């Protein structure tokens, strides 16, 4: 009897040693983000105190990232999972979170960081919502990072959460966050001239992802190439877009690198407009390796195109 008990106890301890994760001492915070933009801001705030990785790439449609099991390995040991929210990642995030089996980053855990909670959200639908409205986001438009004011909010949120989880480095997070805000503010001064060139100018956008960008720089989106979010343009809708462009004098169609530009080129030919591929995220085009560069690239490219079009 005693022999059996000993064997059982030994087996239990052995099982505990195998299944209970080792406690990491003095480790960096491990941060996983859903997008490259959140990654870059997290890195700016966390500096060398965190180890960050991102799931999506900047040149990839964030709605349709595949829930690859390799991402589960990244999330298994994460201390923080920061995501855009507002259902942007709903097509893949639940599978990864369930697969990761990491309570720290599950809903209600200290590392579950829905960044949208810090953002004044645009386009929150009123009244009834259904799928006849296309791939509608019932909680509002999730493409909020293309407004520097929101980038600052994201940075503050990261600072607060990193400080909560890693109290001993809170001074560093505070310093880094302030440095990030000041870097964004300095950069904004460099594109002040671009803002003037963009403000009030009519443009057409492919998807609603440019709404916050437009809110920031004042470009006037007169039509979307998609008749409804996520729905490809029909011929009749294209006629409406062409008419809107002719009526408003819009000469630029803004779209992301992951959409097929053939349809946009067709409309541009009909209206003597130019198709402008803008990266919506860090890493969306080569050379755009951080958030400030992303905003600078997009502002420069849009302003130059509008100037060239004689707007």
């Amino acid at each position, binding site marked *: 009897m005693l022999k059996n008990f000993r064997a059982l106890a030994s087996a239990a301890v052995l099982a505990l040693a195998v299944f209970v994760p080792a406690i990491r001492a003095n480790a960096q915070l491990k941060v996983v983000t859903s997008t490259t933009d959140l990654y870059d801001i997290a890195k700016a705030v966390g500096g060398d105190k965190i180890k960050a990785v991102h799931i999506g790439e900047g040149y990839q*449609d964030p709605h349709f990232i595949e829930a690859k099991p390799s991402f589960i*390995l990244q999330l298994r040991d994460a201390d923080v999972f920061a995501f855009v929210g507002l259902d942007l990642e709903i097509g893949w995030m639940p599978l990864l979170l369930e697969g990761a089996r990491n309570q720290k980053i*599950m809903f209600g855990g200290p590392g579950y960081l829905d960044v949208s909670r810090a953002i*004044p959200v645009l386009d929150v639908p009123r009244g009834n919502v259904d799928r006849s409205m296309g791939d509608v986001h019932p909680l509002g438009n999730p493409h909020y990072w293309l407004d520097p004011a929101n980038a600052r909010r994201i940075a*503050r949120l990261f600072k607060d959460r990193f400080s909560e989880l890693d109290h001993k480095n809170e001074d560093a997070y505070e310093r880094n966050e302030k440095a990030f805000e000041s870097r964004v503010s300095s950069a904004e001064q460099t594109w002040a001239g671009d803002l003037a060139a963009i403000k009030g100018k009519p443009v057409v956008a492919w998807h609603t992802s440019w709404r916050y960008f437009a809110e920031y720089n004042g470009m006037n989106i007169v039509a979307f190439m998609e008749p409804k979010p996520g729905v490809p343009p029909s011929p009749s809708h294209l006629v409406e877009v062409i008419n809107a462009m002719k009526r408003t004098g819009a000469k630029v169609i803004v779209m992301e*690198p992951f959409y097929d530009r053939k349809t946009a080129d067709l409309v541009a030919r009909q209206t003597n407009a130019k198709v402008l591929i803008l990266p919506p995220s860090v890493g969306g085009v080569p050379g755009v390796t951080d958030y400030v560069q992303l905003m600078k690239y997009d502002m420069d490219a849009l302003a130059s195109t509008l100037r060239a079009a004689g707007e």
Partner: protein
Amino acid sequence: MRQFVRATFLCAVFAAAANAQQPDSVRRKARADSIAKARQDSIALQRELEKALAQPTAAPAQAPVQGVGPTNPRLLPDVSAVGDLVGDLSPKGSTQEDRTRFGVREVELAFQAVVDPYFRGDFFLGLSDLEKVSIEQAFLTTTGIRDLEIRLGRYLMPFGKQNTTHRHDLHTVEYPWVIQRFLSPDALKGTGVYVSRVFAPFGFYEELQVTGVDRLGDAPADLRTVEPVNKNLSGLAFSARLRNYLDLTQSTNVELSASALTGRLEQPILVSSPFVNGGAFEPATTEVNAVGARQSLFGVDLTYRWRPLQQGLYRSFIFQTEVMHQVNQRNVLVPGCTSIALPPVQCSSTAFGGPGRDFTGAYAFARWQITTRGFLGARYDWVQDPLDPAGLGRNLTAGSGYLEWFPSEFSKLVAAYERYQSPGADGINRILLQASFALGPHKPHPF
């Protein structure tokens, strides 16, 4: 053995306590530092509080945030429904089980929610004209155990790749023939315990899924044994699956997995009597007409995916193949005539009426994305058919092509052509149409 257990025990204890093994002086100093730091923190916090209380309330630094209230204040579960409609325009008549040309193959209702801080609950009910209402899946899943997932209830058995996919989520109208013949026409389910653990000893994703379930497959309505096949614990069904997933590049990945499953099934008893059937063996028609026999399945599956990240909305390719081998127990002790309550005049001897051989089957499937919403697929099936009327396991072969169109993420239309040749029968051409649609919350995209 005892020495080994002791040594392992000591290793485990030392490993767990490794971080704590420091000299006493270091520990004492760390403790003193910690107390001093706590005291300083406490004083600083007190001062900060006093300072904050003395100052007038400042305006919040951030703009008011919309939508911060709960999105589901009544804590209702997610409710969703999937409709699966099938049309059969095959030239020689419907090939559906119920012979309909157009039918609602199934409506699946799902109720899913977090139960409490420890579990999530999922119910999937199937409604169909043939089965009326059936519990497709109903399971409780742990959410609080690190690296480990335990499920209790009924679930799709983790054997092979496609068996774990709901039928309406398949890229084809029906499961591959090897699954239909070896597992079940609408996927093999089991009721019991499921344990899964993720690990990565070689740097890539691996997952071990182990189950113990009530029995192998559904109990056949027309076969009865002296005792239930699962009377002893060894009569339960057990399965194991090892998934190995590897990213080859950013755009390509491969999954190579192996599965095994074993359990006991009712197999028919044959009786022979020179007075009744001239000595030929025929299936028993008595109250007890079956005997339990072990059946085991072994499988290997490979999935290769290509999807370039930037053009991922427009281009993708999947190749998938599964090979399965069914091993059947044949040296079965069959109850005699008296045990199945047949008098000598009706029964002079009994024999085992189950499969007299093992079977192998496989399929290969490929799917190309041709437009944003259009996909072209093809499948080839080969199975040594356990349902061969001659009992010889002759080959069933089939070739099929599929055109899938997704008007949105929530609806799918499929047109399919299949030609299959079953043992001892003429080839049959099938033309199938399918429409499936989902209502309710956005579900994750299957991977």
